[in-house]
């Protein structure tokens, strides 16, 4: 079903753009980025084409339903559903995950490729627009496929994009593993100086191989985590599956306030996964 496409990223023009970006947003950036060229082959994707109101493709995505154990381990407030009101295609080539407030109750959605698709190494990317407002916690992330046998954090977690709704101009890229999880992960943030991630689409990606994980926003490398950077075991040599969700409240983000606008939407244009062609 997936046609294999050959694409080459990181050509010369993006380098120039990156240099300009670095010049403009130089605050916490290296002055110059030199990245090796790679050729990526598409191995899995969802472009979210389809009729408005449809649930996401059941051959690619499964649902997490309910309130999890202790608010999915984070004291999150939302109840996840598989209702089209919370998660459905918009008919314009996007998937929309909507967090809804019903008096003091919140519903939202969390979808995952667990049991349907997982991959070791490669490039994982999603183009999306985040929700906003205090207490909103959208994420594009991955978990080790062996979570069912070894548990968390031994399975490893790669958060490609997380955002706190009270800081709609900052995204975070993070890994959690044994000895460096929860409040003590390996993490870095990327901020827009005069912009936000909630009113334009941005491309969030990692490039992951046996030595390192590189984190990108709009093809700008803002974080490289190598084996030696991890204060514990490197658990990223096995397949990981993908998750997309919008949480409300929780330890990471705090509670929504009366000023948090609802409903809130994360709009995802596509999710694509590549393997390096050697």
């Amino acid at each position, binding site marked *: 079903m997936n046609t294999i496409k050959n694409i080459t990223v990181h050509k010369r023009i993006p380098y120039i753009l990156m240099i300009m970006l670095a010049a403009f947003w130089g605050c916490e950036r290296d002055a110059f980025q030199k990245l090796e060229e790679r050729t990526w082959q598409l191995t899995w994707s969802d472009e979210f084409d389809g009729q408005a109101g449809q649930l996401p493709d059941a051959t690619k995505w499964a649902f997490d339903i309910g309130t999890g154990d202790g608010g999915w381990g984070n004291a999150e407030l939302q109840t996840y559903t598989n209702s089209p009101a919370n998660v459905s295609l918009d008919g314009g080539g996007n998937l929309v995950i909507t967090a809804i407030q019903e008096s003091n109750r919140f519903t939202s959605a969390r979808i995952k490729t667990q049991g349907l698709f997982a991959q070791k190494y490669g490039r994982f990317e999603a183009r999306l627009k985040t929700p*906003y407002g*205090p207490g*909103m916690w959208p994420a594009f992330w991955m978990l080790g496929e062996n979570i069912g046998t070894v548990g968390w954090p031994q399975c490893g977690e790669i958060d490609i994009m997380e955002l706190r709704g009270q800081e*709609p*101009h900052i995204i975070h890229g993070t890994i959690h593993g044994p000895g460096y999880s929860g409040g003590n992960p390996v993490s870095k943030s990327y901020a827009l100086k*005069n912009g*936000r991630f909630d009113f334009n689409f941005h491309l969030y990606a990692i490039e992951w191989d046996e030595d390192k994980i590189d984190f990108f926003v709009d093809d700008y490398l803002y974080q490289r985590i190598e084996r030696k950077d991890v204060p514990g075991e490197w658990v990223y040599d096995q397949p990981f599956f993908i998750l997309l969700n919008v949480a409300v409240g929780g330890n990471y983000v705090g509670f929504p306030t009366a000023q*948090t*606008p609802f409903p809130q939407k994360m709009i995802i244009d596509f999710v694509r996964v590549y393997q390096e062609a050697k």
Partner: protein
Amino acid sequence: METNMIDIIKKYLPIILVAVLFAACERDLEDLKPVPFPSNPEVFIDGFTAGLNYAAFGGSVPTAFDVDNKVTWNNSKASMRFDVPNAGDPQGAYAGGVFFTGSGRDLSGYNALTFWAKANQSAVLDLVGFGNDLGPSTYQVTISGLSVSTAWKKYIIPLPDPSKLTAERGMFFYSVGPADGKGFSFWIDELKFENLGTIAHPQFGILEGQDQTETSFVGVSKMIGGLTSIYNMPTGVNQAVNIAPAYFEFNSSAPSVATVDASGKVSVTGGPGNAVITAKVGDKTAKGSLTIQSVGVFQPAPVPTRTPDRVISIFSNAYTNVPVNYYNGYWAPYQTTLSADFAVNGDHVLHYTNFNFVGIEFSSPTINASALTHLHVDIFIPGTLTANAQIRFELVDFGSTNVTGTFTRTITPAQSQQWISLDIPFSSFSGLTRRSSLAQLIFVDVIGNIPGFYADNIYFYTEAAQPSVPLTAAPAPAHSAANVISVFSDAYAAIPGTDLTPNWGQATATSVMQIQGNNTLRMAGLNYQGIQLGTSQNVSSMGFLHIDYWTANSTQLKVFLISPGPVETAYTLTVPTNGWRSIDIPLSSFAPVNLGDVIQLKFEGNGDIYLDNIYFRRN
């Protein structure tokens, strides 16, 4: 090379000059564009920026604002300090003023006015904003109730549609009152315009974002209200911003039915037909709309012809209405009836919608209708009736016990969509054993098939000959007490010691009686009647003698002003009256009476006269 160039220029200079001259001649007026205003974004950084002025609002403490060199944001050279007064400060009740420029600035490149602020205690700034130019303030934007703390923090006032802001003079203004009666100080620094990418998701609304529908007529106009504006701030929270109507561009889907002007005033111009009024701010569509369902030309209720002295009016443009508590009591929990009253060419009409029952109350004071005989009401059912309907009228008297009288009228389908004028004798109201303290009129949909109706000209009247006593009180005076020296009125304190019934040998029986709870001076069987002022009055700075008078049977009436001598001059009043008549007599008419020393008034004539609101007033 350089020498060569200079040589060339020297050689050809005359030609170049000629060419320049020609070019200048060829330029026509359309090429002349107005010089744009400067786009300087800075208002107050380390002091006033060029051209900036300050003016305090009237009634505020004029010295509330000062430049502070000690408490500043980020150790800059200066900040703006504002000292809010304590309640009762003789200098002023609040701190407030405008920072404005003498000529305009082009702010179209900025989408926000920003500043850093702190206060010496947690406080709420009642109003801060942009666009007050001490004139029309067309593009004003304000935030109400801005909370500031004791730590410096950045605040943002978003500017909707900056493309309109090409010649702005009002840079910043504030109006802040005491907190719980106590004054405080706050500081503002780095006040400037910015183009922020961190404010997002503006949402605009008209009619509070609701879609409303109204039945209307040619000639009806109304303002679109409920203008709202919300921005999402860099912290992800929504902030309500008050923005001027001029930011909204209103549109009518059918100008032949209804037009809307730049201020949001909708005027129904035609019909039958529908027009949808919507608005945009910049390229954003505002939430909410008004659908005008125009019925076309309104057919007004028949104009009442009864003389006012036979009428006690509750709702009519033909008469002066008595005090009414409400025209719709919204009686919970069973009433569904709503009000959508309207005016067509100045004629007000009650419009009850979603009708089951509705009450009008006029209990302060109640109406004594003992001397009257009928209730008049005009009703109009705009919908189509499919079967006979019944409307019940209930009159409630708030005497020692409540007494209710009811009268039911059947309306046939053929009678809908036209005015039905009802003259209902009190004797037809079953159970109405008393009508000296009427307080309520209730309409009830008996069958439940009347969706709504218009009502007009609701009044009680007498069919008998003209009453000899006024049914209603004299109109309430509207002049400010500071401009009045009063002889007799409930509205003003009278000259102390004034004697309304001095014994000058007159045959007149003079007394004070209450009409609708209002003291009225009655002179029965008048030949003459003096009024002795408590003290001599200097009315030379006054312009007029005001009198309200009422008489059904007098054929001759004069009023005199008297100064010592006696010097007295008469002024003839037109009688009889048709209801209350108000007159303002120029004091010059009383020459040669000494206006510096007026001691008495006198009425002379015949019949029974009723007087109220006798006072001198300034121009």
